[in-house]
Structure formats: C-alpha cells, structure tokens
C-alpha cells in the first residue's frame, strides 16, 4: 500500500484548470520526483496535497486515510510536511526559533526536549549551528533552504514535500543540498521532490513523473527518464515540431 496516493486530482486557479486529473503514488522510503517545465503544475500538486489549494475533484490518500481538502494545520499533524517554494523562513525569527517553531503541530513540548531536537537538526545541517542566533532574513539562499528543511523535519513527518529546493542556488550549494536530501532519506524519510533541475533530481530519486500542462505524460525510473525524448522536450522544446 502506497504511503501517498493521488487519484485523478483536479485543481483550479480561478477559471484556469491547473491540474487535469493527476494520478500518482509514493511508496514508503522512496524519493519520488515531479519534473516539468514552469507552469506545468508541479508546485500546484504539492499545494493541493498540503491544503494550501482546494482540490475540485479526485482523491488524495495518505496512510490509507483521505487528506483531501482538510485544513493545512491538520495535514501537518497527520504527518505531511511541506517545505514550500522560495523557502519562506520566518524572517524576523532566529534560526533556532525557526527550527523550534516547526514543531508547532506536535503540541506543547518541554523546553528540554525542544532544545535536544534542535541539536539533532544541527547534526544533520552542521552549517546552521553557528547561525543559531542569526535572524532569518540575514541568511544566504542555501542557508535558508537548509533551515526550511530543518523546520519541516521538526514536525516529525512521515512524508516530506520539497518544492524546488535548488531554486536560485549556486551549483555547488545544490550538490551539498542534494547530498543532505539523500542523507534524510537514508534515515527513513519518504520524500516527494519537485524540481526544475531534472538531472539533479533524477540523481537522487527512485522514480519520477513528468508533468506537462497539468497532466502526467511519462513516469519511470531515472534511467528510463534520462534517456527519454519526452523529458527533453518537456523542458527544452522539441527541436522539431
């Protein structure tokens, strides 16, 4: 039984249909990636799962229970953490505070427990430790991305939704970031990864789907996708029409 399952999900932005019947699944312990050009519907898919966007038709099952159109706060407590596009760390809170606030869905934890968990996060993301007291807005793009993931992990999710983590980051930072993503998966996390950087995403994923204007056109393993003409054309155009 898949951990996450989408069946014929349709979503709209006002009059425009963004998702035209998406069906996909993520098994426990996998990294699955959603690829596609800008505007294809990748972020929309994540937002439909986490509750930021209402779903018009279809079904979303998590751990065999429906999470369709339930409030964001409830989705988090069910065990899905969404690290959104653009990181969106809280600019006026410190790194330490950003991390601690990630646990909000788990109710009131003792100060000691929280501090211990923050230390755990510093082990996974060592560069954040020295920035512990720095305010969110002062961090670089790569540091903010790490912080956003750490914050997401604090809700102790079963499924992590990562939306375009490499956006605006220099290549070497992206390498480090993806190494960390592998590390997190190895510790037992299931990850649904949305990425524009297809090569990087396919280097860590177990499986992938390709979205074109709101529909899934191809799915398969990284090997299958890397050598697939359709993937290429989804990103770079046909070269011939």
């Amino acid at each position: 039984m898949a951990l996450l399952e989408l069946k014929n999900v349709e979503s709209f932005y006002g009059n425009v249909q963004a998702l035209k019947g998406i069906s996909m699944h993520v098994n426990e312990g996998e990294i699955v990636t959603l690829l596609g050009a800008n505007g294809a519907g990748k972020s929309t898919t994540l937002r439909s799962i986490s509750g930021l966007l209402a779903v018009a038709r279809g079904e979303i099952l998590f751990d065999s229970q429906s999470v369709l159109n339930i409030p964001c706060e409830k989705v988090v407590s069910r065990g899905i953490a969404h690290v959104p596009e653009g990181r969106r760390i809280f600019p006026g809170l410190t790194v330490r505070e950003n991390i601690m606030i990630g646990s909000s869905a788990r109710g009131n934890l003792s100060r000691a427990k929280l501090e211990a968990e923050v230390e755990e996060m510093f082990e996974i993301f060592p560069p954040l430790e020295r920035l512990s007291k720095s305010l969110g807005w002062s961090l670089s793009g790569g540091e903010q991305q790490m912080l956003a993931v750490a914050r997401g992990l604090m809700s102790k999710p079963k499924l992590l939704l990562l939306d375009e983590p490499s956006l605006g980051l220099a290549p070497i930072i992206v390498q480090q970031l993806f190494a960390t993503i592998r590390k997190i998966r190895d510790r037992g996390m299931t990850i649904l990864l949305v990425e524009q950087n297809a090569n990087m995403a396919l280097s860590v994923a177990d499986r992938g789907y390709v979205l074109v204007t709101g529909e899934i056109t191809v799915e398969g393993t990284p090997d299958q996708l890397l050598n697939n003409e359709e993937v290429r054309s989804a990103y770079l155009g046909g070269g011939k029409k």
Partner: protein
Amino acid sequence: MANFIVINFQVLFSGLALGSIYALVALGFVLIIRATNVVNFAQGDFAMLGGFSMVAFLGAGAPYWLAILLSLVAMGVFGLIFNLGVYYPLRHRSFLPVIISTLGASIFMQNTVLYFFGPQPRPMEKVFKTSGIEVGGVFMDTQYLTILGVTIIAVAFQYFLFERTLFGKKLQATSQDKDMARLVGIPVATMIAFTFIYSAVLGGVAGILVSPVLFVSIGMGSIIALKAFSATIIGGFGDVTGSIVGALLLGVVESFGAHYISVPYKDAFAFLLLFIFLLLRPQGIFGEKISEKA
C-alpha cells in the same frame, strides 16, 4: 531659572503620561496590523468601552479593584466578538471593505453605549486617593504616575511575551507569513483571535487609566484613536517600538504645544505632525518592516 526647569519638567511629565495612553492604544493597533494587515479604526473605542465598563461595575457597587478585573474580562470578550463579527467575515477581502467595516463597528459601539448610558460624560475616581506627590517642586499627579507605571509594565509584559515565549514566537510567525505559519501547524485563526482579545484589553486598560483625567465620554475613543494612529505612522507603520516612541513624542509635543502656543488647538499639533510625516516621510522614524507589503 529653577522655575523654568520645574515648569518644563511638569509639562514634560504630563506629556509623557498622555503619550503613554496613546502608546497603549497604539500597541494594540499595531499588533492587529501585523497579524492581519487590518487597520482598525475602532481601536480607540476599546478605550471608551473600558471606561464605560468601569462606570457600569462601579455603579453596581463593586470595589475599585474588582471593577478593574471585571472590566478587563469584559474587554477580552468584546475583543473576541470583534474578531468574529468584524474581522472574520471579511478576512479575504481587500482593505477598503475592511476599513469601512471597522468604521461601522466604531459607530455601532459608540451608539450602543449612548443608548445605555446617555450622552452625559461621567466622572471617575482616581486609582489612588492621594491626589499627587511633590518632588523637587514638581507636582506629579498620582493618576499620571499610575499611567506611566502601568504602561511600563504593559510594555515589559509584551516584550516578555513576544520575545521570550514560544507562544509569542508563534504570534510573530503568524504576522510574518500567515500561510507558512499554517504549514508549520500553527493554529492561525486562534492566534488572530488572541491578538484581537489582547489588543482590546490593552485599549481597555488605556481607557480605565485615562478616565479619571478626561471623564468617560462616548467620543473619547475617537480622538485617542486618531492620535494613536498618528503615533504609529510617525514612529513607523507596523513597528512596535516605533509606535511607542511616536506616541510619547506626540504626547510631549501636544503638551508643550498646549502650554506655549494654544490650548484649544492642541489637538491640531497631532494632525499637523501627522500631515508632515505622511507627506515627507511616510515610512516614519523607524521605517517599515520588511515583512510589510505595500
């Protein structure tokens, strides 16, 4: 010479006390803006309600301290009702309907009180029986001292709440990025309700403190509100420290203006100062926070 210092200190002292009242109202006002982006034109009326709650409870025979307690509870309830009735139905709409609604709420509150209490301003006793203490030739009214004292405590409490507790951090997160706060599991609607309740209580405290000085009247809130808004803009729209500084500055300018230039026109100084800031430096002394959207 000593006389000159004494008089000016006197004027400064009353200006600071007055400014503290504005600061209390401004604090509540800024909190609501930061959490919800709503400019609450009814903020001053919370002060008015605070004053009239006191009148009601004292009139029913309650001892002073109990009346204060009950009034604060009542203010909390009013804040919650305001949140549910005025903010919540309009939370997704643009700023214009919301501003107008808060104006409507202000009219409603004032006229409901008018219906129950009539148009006559009511006097109210001070907190302490002694009228004042004298230090070095300067006479300091006990009510003014109380105002300053309570304001300092309120500001300290607010600082503690927001900077030192996790709950306060959650409130801050809510005002910095509402959707992200939801994604992290923060119950945003509850946070906002709390903000309204807290702001209403702050307003009520201001009203209770200033009533012995100004009399309790229907319109007392409107004028205080306008000064508080001016303070917020002068200090820097959306900035907590800025609004306190702006409020104190305003109180002092008014006090000196009344003393040296003219008493009837003292209200005009606030508006003139506001006018100047809006035209020359709309972001105020401390500027707008990064998280504010234009």
